[in-house]
Every structure is written in structure tokens, then in C-alpha cells.
């Protein structure tokens, strides 16, 4: 009986999703040709928040590491970029790479300390380290100390590719910078989602899911849980740092309180993931769209907006802990980014499990 089995993760819905994703990315890439500057800035915001959300989701949803200190990596990444541009005279675009490297370097001691703490105390540990990073950076007078600083005009003017975009799109330098940072944000978001999807479908991803579901059981089949946690933490920190650098390159102005803000870079991100659906790739995508809509509608109400966001987050966690995407996929069975392996072919008839 020579049965041939194949293991697949693809579903009809996911094939459709892949094609639509390619179309959407193509449209987004072409957006500067037809979209207004305001829309480009909104899309930039959505894409960078999506990147941050995907990395937090990788940490908390897949790695089981609930961090409340991701602002440490946003802030440090951003300050590394400013440091490279202001002190070393490097091109801002090249400096983005140093934002990722700086975050990665900070992540090593952070993990060393925070991994000594379990569960909820891990969350506080990361927060303390973010505070230490904020207070230390505020002492760094070369980049403006506690009051912050701006990127020098000369560096912004001579930034690579900006001149080309200026003449190609016939726009002013500031609009050209927005287009450039938008494209970079798009590349980063797509690379993040593709990378995480690839990771989850690979062997380490399987190990990661096993550690998340049951650490002891995963260990007993030879998964090195400690190494997986380090890997996830460092990856997330690096990606978060890159996003941080990019965000503050677009803003062109930085201060320690803004760059290390727990509300902007951690609270919002947590709500995006929780409302959308934690532990899925689709969740943060849905979450960031809902977050953006809520912000557009309620932003004028200041603190009421944050209260509503908090209440929605609490209700979702209490009544639909898998988030909105969890509800949708439970009802319909649709998975746009399936990671579950299914056996088909051979003598096994097609059966959904």
C-alpha cells in the first residue's frame, strides 16, 4: 500500500488571500502617484503601528512574553538614528539600520534582567528598563537632553533618494520625504508580516507554538524553550527599533518623553493586538484598521478617546479573548494566514479537523 501523503498548510481562502495581499501591496506601493500627502501620512502611521503590533504579537501572542516596555526599543532606535545623523553625519536612511542594531544591543541586557522575572513581573521588568533608558537618554546632552532635538536641516536636505522623488513626483522636499518614509514603512511592514508568517510555518515556528501552548510538554520533546524566548525577544526588539527609527525620521523632531511614551508605543499597540485578535497574523491587521477608524472619529475628544479604547480593550479581553478576528474565524473557519499543518492525500480522504 504505497500511499503518498502530503502536508499542506494552504487553504483555498489563503490562496485567495495571498493574491489579494499582492494586489493590495501593489496598490499601496503605487499610492504616492495618486494619493494626497495627508493620506500618505495616515498610511505611514497605519503601517508603522502595524509593524509594532506584529512584533508585540510575536512576543506576547506566540512567545508568551507580555512586555509593557517596547517603548524602550522605539525610543532607543529613534535616538540611535538621531545620534548617527547628528554626531556622525551619516545619511538618515543608512542610520535606520543603526536604529535596529541599537535596539538589538539594548535587548540583550534587557532580556538578561527581565527573563529572571516570571509572567506579570516580566512585564514590569521590561517597563522599568524602558524607564531607565528614558531617564538615561534624557541625560544625553548631545541630542538635546530632556527637551529633545530636531534632525538638522542639512541632513534632511541631502537625504538620499529625496532629490529623485522631488523631481519624479514634482513635489517639495518635505512631501518627498514623506513619500520616501512611507515606502520604507511599507517595505518594513510587508517584510515583518512575511517574515513572521514564514517563521510560524517553519520548524522553529512549530517549536514556538509548542512552547506557547505547553512549555513542559514542548521541553519533553526536545524544544529548547529558553532559546526560543531569546530569539523572539531579540527579533521583536530589532524590528521595533527599526520602526522607531523610521517613525522619528518622519517626525524629524524627538524628545525622550515622546519617544519613550508607554501610551503611544505600548498601550496603543496592545489595544490593536487585543482588539484585532492576539496570536494571529490577521488580528493586528484588523486591529490597526479599527484603531485608526476610532482615532479618526474620536481624536477630538482627547481623554474620552483613550477611555473608550481602554473600555473596548477590557470588554474584548473579557468577552472575546481571541479578539474580533477570533470571532470571525470561529464563525466562518476562514484563515488568511494558515499555519496549521494538515495531512492530505494517500488513503486519508479529505476531512476537516
Amino acid at each position: 500500500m504505497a500511499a503518498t501523503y502530503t502536508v499542506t498548510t494552504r487553504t483555498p481562502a489563503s490562496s485567495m488571500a495571498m493574491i489579494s495581499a499582492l494586489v493590495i501591496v501593489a496598490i499601496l506601493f503605487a499610492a504616492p502617484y495618486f494619493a494626497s500627502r495627508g493620506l500618505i501620512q495616515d498610511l505611514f502611521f497605519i503601517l508603522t503601528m502595524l509593524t509594532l503590533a506584529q512584533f508585540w504579537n510575536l512576543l506576547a501572542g506566540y512567545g508568551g512574553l507580555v512586555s509593557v516596555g517596547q517603548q524602550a526599543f522605539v525610543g532607543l532606535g529613534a535616538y540611535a538614528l538621531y545620534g548617527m545623523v547628528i554626531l556622525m553625519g551619516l545619511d538618515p536612511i543608512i542610520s535606520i539600520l543603526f536604529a535596529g542594531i541599537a535596539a538589538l544591543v539594548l535587548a540583550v541586557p534587557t532580556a538578561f534582567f527581565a527573563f529572571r522575572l516570571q509572567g506579570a513581573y516580566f512585564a514590569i521588568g521590561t517597563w522599568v528598563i524602558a524607564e531607565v533608558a528614558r531617564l538615561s537618554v534624557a541625560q544625553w546632552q548631545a541630542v538635546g537632553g530632556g527637551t529633545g532635538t530636531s534632525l538638522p536641516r542639512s541632513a534632511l536636505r541631502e537625504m538620499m533618494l529625496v532629490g529623485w522623488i522631488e523631481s519624479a513626483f514634482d513635489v517639495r522636499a518635505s512631501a518627498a520625504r514623506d513619500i520616501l518614509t512611507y515606502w520604507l514603512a511599507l517595505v518594513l511592514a510587508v517584510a515583518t508580516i512575511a517574515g513572521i508568517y514564514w517563521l510560524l510555518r517553519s520548524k522553529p515556528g512549530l517549536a514556538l507554538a509548542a512552547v506557547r501552548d505547553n512549555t513542559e510538554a514542548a521541553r519533553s520533546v526536545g524544544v529548547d524553550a529558553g532559546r526560543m524566548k531569546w530569539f523572539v525577544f531579540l527579533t521583536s526588539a530589532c524590528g521595533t527599533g527599526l520602526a522607531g527609527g523610521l517613525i522619528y525620521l518622519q517626525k524629524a523632531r524627538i524628545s525622550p518623553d515622546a519617544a519613550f511614551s508607554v501610551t503611544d508605543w505600548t498601550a496603543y499597540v496592545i489595544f490593536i493586538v487585543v482588539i484585532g485578535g492576539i496570536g494571529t497574523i490577521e488580528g493586528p491587521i484588523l486591529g490597526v484598521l479599527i484603531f485608526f477608524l476610532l482615532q479618526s472619529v474620536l481624536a477630538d475628544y482627547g481623554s474620552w478617546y483613550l477611555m473608550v479604547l481602554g473600555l473596548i480593550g477590557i470588554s474584548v479581553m473579557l468577552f472575546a479573548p481571541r479578539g474580533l478576528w477570533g470571532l470571525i474565524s470561529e464563525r466562518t473557519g476562514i484563515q488568511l494566514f494558515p499555519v496549521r499543518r494538515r495531512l492530505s492525500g494517500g488513503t486519508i480522504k479529505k476531512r476537516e479537523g
Partner: protein
Amino acid sequence: MIWVDTILQGVLLGGLYALFAAGLSLVFGIMRLVNLAHGDLIVFGAYLILIVVSVLGLHPFLAAFIAAPVMFVFGWVLQKAVLNRTLGDDILPPLLVTFGLSIVIQNGLLEAFSADSQRISMGPLETASVSIGPISAGVLPLLTFGSAVLVIVALNRLFYRTAIGRAFRATSDDPTTASLMGIRPDRVFATATAIAMLVVTIAALYLGTRANFDPNVGPARLIYAFEAVIIGGLGSLWGTLAGGIIIGVAQTVGAAINPEWQILAGHVAFLVVLLVRPRGLFPRGN
């Protein structure tokens, strides 16, 4: 001599941090719930006392007696209606729900009282001090420290000498077996949070009278409280006092060297203890 004075100030400040931490430690000890809204609940309590003081014109100490039952009931309902639903093996729901609660309380207070900083006036008590030889200490910091010691003694007595304390310990060890003995864990948890809110009220009284506060100061108090709990070793209330003192002394010594280093020095002390004694100074065997 100035150093003796600085360290004394730090020790007394540690009493305040121990008060911030005691409620947190109590709740964690019984139901393994880490309440990220703890700092904001203290600030909420301070505003409650402020309202009573300004509306009824009472002395802050009397106002705290009126605020305390309100906070007690609030804590009971909060635990019964919301937080009990989040308890379980998964650490995400309690963390994220209390994080959401923290954002809601902060912004609710911001909406109700604006971002202006407030202070509960104690009258002449604010500046009163006692001197022993060359060293002098403020009466209010001494009262704070004394209250912290009293709260810890009271909580320890409650834990080890009373029926409700027995129920706390039993539920903490094994809720299922405890419920077989006729204990209702959900009520025990609600009572524990309600008692924690009494401690929060005392912490709020000193938070509000010793310095200015505004709706956004909660998270920083939460961090000091956590540091005190972790330095002391989870589950040890006297350890929490020791942890508070370490943070307090580190902060005042840091501030004496350079005013900008005050907060940073406290955090660094915490990280050093974590490096040397990952389980805290007085870990309870488990």
C-alpha cells in the same frame, strides 16, 4: 552628618513605597493577580479624599475614614464583577484587563479634574518636624513610616490569626480544595481586593498630603511598588518594607548627588538587587 540625614529621609520615603506596595502584595499573594491599575487606584483614592476634604471641610485623616468604605466597596465590586473573570492559568487576561483599567482611570481622572496638580492640605502638620540631637525628621514622613509598619503588622495578624486569614491562605494554596471546605473563592478574592483598597486609601492619604499629584502619576507609583515587592521577595510583607526602604534610600542618595538622578538611582538599585538576588532578599520558600 548630611548623609545620615539623607539616609533617614530615604528610609522614611521607603515607608511610603511600602504602603504603595502592601495592597499589591496582598492581592498577588492570594490570587496571583498582578494589578497594573494599582498606582492609578491610589491616585483615584487621593482624589476621593481631596473631594471629601474640599466638600465637607474635614481634616484629611477624617476624610480618609469616609473614603475608606467607599474604596472597600469599590474594590469588592471590581473584583467580583470584572477581575474574577480574568483569573486562570493564562496570564494575559488579568494583565491586559488591568492595563486597560489603568488607562480608563487615568483618563477618567484627567477628564474630571484636568491635568493640574493638586495637593491635600494638612495645615501646620505639613511643615512640623521633630529633632533628636542634630538630626531632624518631618512629622508627616514619620507618620507615613509608622502607618506602613502598622499596616504590615495588621495584615500579618489578619493573615495568620483570623478565620478570614485562614480562608485567604487556603484559597491561595488550592482554591478547589478550599471550596470543598465551604469557602467560596470568588468571595474570598473579592474580600481580599476590598481589604487591599483600604490599604490603598491609606497610601492615597500620604501620596496626596506629602507631595503634589495629578492624574498621570499612577504608573510611576506602580513601578516603585513593584520594585519594592520584588526586592523584598514575593509574598513577604516585611520584605516589601525592606524593598521600599532600599528604593527610598537609593532615590534620596541619588538626588543628593545630582537631582536628576533621583528616579534613575531607584531603578538601578532595583536592577542590581535583581542581578544579585533574583528571588529577592527574603524569598518565601515554595
